[in-house]
């Protein structure tokens, strides 16, 4: 397994405000797979994604990426882990407002010695004509594409997507999903996608449903539906 998650528990707060968000979650995916994490709000899906991404700590359990335990890493090592292995995509894009599309991508190009070809990436993501625009000049879908390009430029082994279509309309969402599919095929990037959109489960290799901090369903799709055919 490329990613192995074993019995991880995570809680917040103390006393009256104590909440156990993850109550012993175990799962894992193979390299190059796309995994969708589904579940209602507050179920713990984003927390699971964040712990895998090293943005949040766990109370117990283990998270192994390529057989390396990341839950024991210190903040510096976690930075290095994210720098070398990860790409992130967020619901609200989080682009640097006063950098152009290309520059936003270059922000992450700076972090690696072996970046992908930026022009090719721009081309793949359909941003070539927008590369000199600032985020405020782009639509939501274009901004998210820019965010994806920024995440991919490092050619990460693992791409973590937190509600990548959450702020987008139907058409834009479909385009983003098609893009994710395309990237996975083109670059073989392993992906975790946290989403409320249940339609996505049909296009991914693996589906994990979380409910109340526990995995309620964890299964692999044998037949994948192209993103372009998804309906919701």
């Amino acid at each position, binding site marked *: 397994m490329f990613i192995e998650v074993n019995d991880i528990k995570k809680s917040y707060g103390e006393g009256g405000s104590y909440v156990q968000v993850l109550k012993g979650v175990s799962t894992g995916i193979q390299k190059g797979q796309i995994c969708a994490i589904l579940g209602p709000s507050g179920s713990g899906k984003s927390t699971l994604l964040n712990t895998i991404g090293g*943005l949040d700590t766990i109370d117990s359990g283990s998270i192994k990426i390529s057989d390396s335990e990341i839950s024991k890493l210190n903040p510096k090592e976690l930075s290095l882990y994210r720098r*070398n292995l990860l790409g992130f995509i967020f619901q609200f894009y989080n682009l640097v407002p006063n950098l152009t599309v290309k520059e936003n991508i270059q922000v992450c190009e700076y972090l690696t010695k072996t970046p992908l070809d930026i022009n090719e990436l721009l081309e793949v993501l359909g941003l070539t004509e927008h590369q000199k625009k600032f985020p405020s000049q782009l639509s939501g879908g274009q901004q998210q594409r820019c965010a994806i390009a920024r995440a991919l430029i490092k050619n990460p082994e693992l791409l973590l997507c937190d509600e990548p279509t959450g702020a987008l309309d139907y058409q834009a969402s479909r385009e983003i999903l098609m893009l994710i599919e395309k990237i996975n095929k083109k670059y073989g990037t392993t992906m975790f996608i946290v989403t409320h959109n249940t339609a996505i489960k049909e296009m991914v290799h693996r589906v994990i449903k979380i409910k109340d901090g526990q995995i309620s369903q964890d299964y692999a799709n044998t037949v994948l539906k192209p993103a372009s055919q998804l309906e919701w």
Partner: protein
Amino acid sequence: MILNKRIIRELKENWARYGALAFLIIFSLGLVVSMAGSTDVVNYTIDKNNEKNQLEDGEFSVYVPLTENQQQELEKMGARTEAAFYVDLSGPEKSVLRIFKNRNSINTIELEEGRLADHRGEIVLEKHYAEKHGIRVGQSIEVDQKNYQVTGIGTVPDYSNVVQNVSDVLADLKQFSIGFVSESEFNQLLAEDINVEYNYSYKLDGKLTDSELKEKLVDLDFDKTKVANKYMQEIIDTIEKGKNDLSGGVNDLADGTQKLANGANSLKQGSNELAEGAGSLVSGTDQLSSGLEELTNSNTTLNQAADDVFQGMLAQVNSEFANMGMTVTVTGDNYSSVIDSLIKTIDGSDANTVIVLNTMKAQLDSYKAFKDGLTAYTNGVESAYSGSVELSAGADSLHQGSEAVANGVNTLSNGSAELNSGMGELKNQVTNFINENMAYQYVNLITFLEAGDNQRITSCKSDAAINKNSALIAGVIILTLIAYMISVFVIHTIDKESAVIGALYSMGYVKKELLKHFMILPMLVVTASALLGTGLGFMLIGENIKENVAYYSYPGYAMVFPPYLLIYGVLLPILIALLVNYTVINSKLSLAPLKLLRREKKQHQLTSIDLKEMGFINRYRIRQLLREIRGNITLFCGLSIAILLMVFGFSIYGSISAYVNNVASDVEYNYLYLLKYPMETAPTDATKAYTESLTADLYLTGGEMDVTVQGIDDQNPYFDFSLDGEKNEVVISDSVASKFGYRVGDEITLFDNLTDRNYNFRVKAVVNFASGLYIFMDIKDMRELFGQEEDYYNTLMSDQELDIEAGRIATVITVDKMVAAARQMFTMMYGLVITILAASVLLFAIVMYLLVKMMIDKSAFSISLIKVFGYNEREIKKLYLGTTFYTVALTTLIAIPASKMIINKIYPYMVSNVSAGMNATMSPQSYLIMVAIILSAYAIVNFMVGRHLKKISLVEILKERE
């Protein structure tokens, strides 16, 4: 790093903010560097000039000029001296020109124009005087009714502050200055003018200290007959006469004592003889008394026998009568008349009977005479005896008395001998006293002033130094504030971009990279501003130095670029910004990536304060204020600094205004004459006083400052306080109290530099008297303390100008002159006051605008939200800008009194070199004006930010998550 590309864009997007901050830095540094740089330029120019023109190490004045031998002797000891004699003459427009001869080796003249006065009828003038009177080289000037051609204009290092007297508060450059003539011209003036001051400048070569030189000068012999000043000669004559009278009196006394001793000796011998004679007399009288006693004892027998003989004779006569047939009987008492009657009866008829009768009568007469004689004798013997007894007793008393007299005379004689001997000693002692102590009257030294204590030399640099120190301290405070403001803006940016930063962290960026990135812009702004500000500061030096150049007298200045100022102007702001920004930004970037992504903010405890049932608007405002507590605290600090500057400006204005007014109101006499040589009889229309100049330790500078001790009596019409009390009690002026920090009940020590003597006083009361630094005491006590005669005075106060010979006067102080000098100070400081006020208003407005705008920007989401809810502009203004009003109002309420307290504490240090107590005073009008300025600035900023508020779009809420 590609991220850094945004820096220029960030700068462009927020040009107003960064521009305003840069302006503040440039403006502040411009002011600070120009002020500090001006000081350095002044110091450099003066130091260079002092070195070039051989500034004295000190100066002294004497009654009789030193002889050449004495000067050579001093030089051998290590003190090179040069005569700097002067006469004060009347110049144009009632001014006084102090004329010196050209100097050779000490305090030489630095000419700015023309040449030295080489010939008779030529003069070189001090540059400010020439300028104020519009005199140029080549023109002529009338000095003491004599025309001089001005051959040069320049300065000398010992009169950089051109004050007539060292203790003068301010120079009046139009009314008093100095001029230099050739030696021959000066000698001519000396011949004409008796009021010459024999002043010398000295330079030490290291072998001799100032105090050793002073001691030497005190001991230096001089020929008092050569005292040229007639008034001094009068004093010497009076003292000499007194001395001679004392000496003659003692001689007379000695002679008299000798005579007394001789007389007492003779008296002693006489009294001894008398005592001996009295002893013999006692013995004789005793014997006499004893003999007379024996005689007295036989008196009765003798008298009885005589009576018996007489009676027998009478019986014989009666018997004869009977025989003669006469029937008469005679007794001792009637025998004479009976016999005479018988004779008459016979009447020649019987001559024989008549003869017998006459014979009988003659016999009876002789017997009666014998009897009476015997009775008289015995009575005499008795009296003699009685007398001898008394004589004996008297002789005894006489003997005893004479012995007492002898003893007394002996004592007297011994005493007079001792007196005579003591008188000899007294005479010797008096002679010694006259020789030793009365010689002090002729110590040639009048004044001795080290260069370091001479405000003519020091005040320019010390004045500049105070400005420099104040400016540098103010600069650090303002720079720290600005650096902090910048960091607040950076934090605002970080907060605004929190999610982006979180995303960057998620991608693998490390804190160091982002810290570096976020620090670049503030550091660039600060660095560029620091460079520009420092450059501007150096450019403004010429402007800043104007007032100093216009007041003090020194040659044209040369620009200097002291390394420390470059460090202060460029490196210090960078360092402060680096430190502040690093600390603040580092702390902000230390948040976990997830928190940044979620825009989680630490909620300050204050934000959850229970506001009870407060009205909605006020509650909202307070919540907003607490939410933006950092911005509001920064605003509070910034506005406080601006208010501090404002209070400082108003305090300078108030302080000088109060000084001008108080001088005019506290000083009730119109003329004060300080006399070098008081007249024997003072003018009747003047009030006498006694003035001494002493020094007191000035804690503000760690040095000393001259104070005037003035002895007045209770009848003095110009002062309404009482001086009754102990002999060492004094009443001090509020000026002295403020300057030296003295209070009622304090024991104070004043020092006489010339005599190296300390005087201790106790402060009895503090009275209003703004002019100079005065300490008042009872004139009688003061005369006694300073060893002056009972009627001594050296000061006259008057309502009218007095007709006093010029040569007797040391200084005339008029209220008009004092007020004029104070007004001149006011004019000098006016520019500074305006600059400070303008700077404070600018700082106030810019800080408020930037911070309020930033806080509005931060609240853009919620403003947008309440716009969506339907709040109108007026209500939104109330909610958001009303918060600022709380901060401004609170700052005004706290900062004004706090600033006043701070200025009250530091102001004395800033005016520590002024010879008057000046407090940081602000009139009620100043407070009102200040509040009006604050409110006006607030209104303007409110209007400008209000416009910005309008621009916040309704869709803001759709663009961002909070």
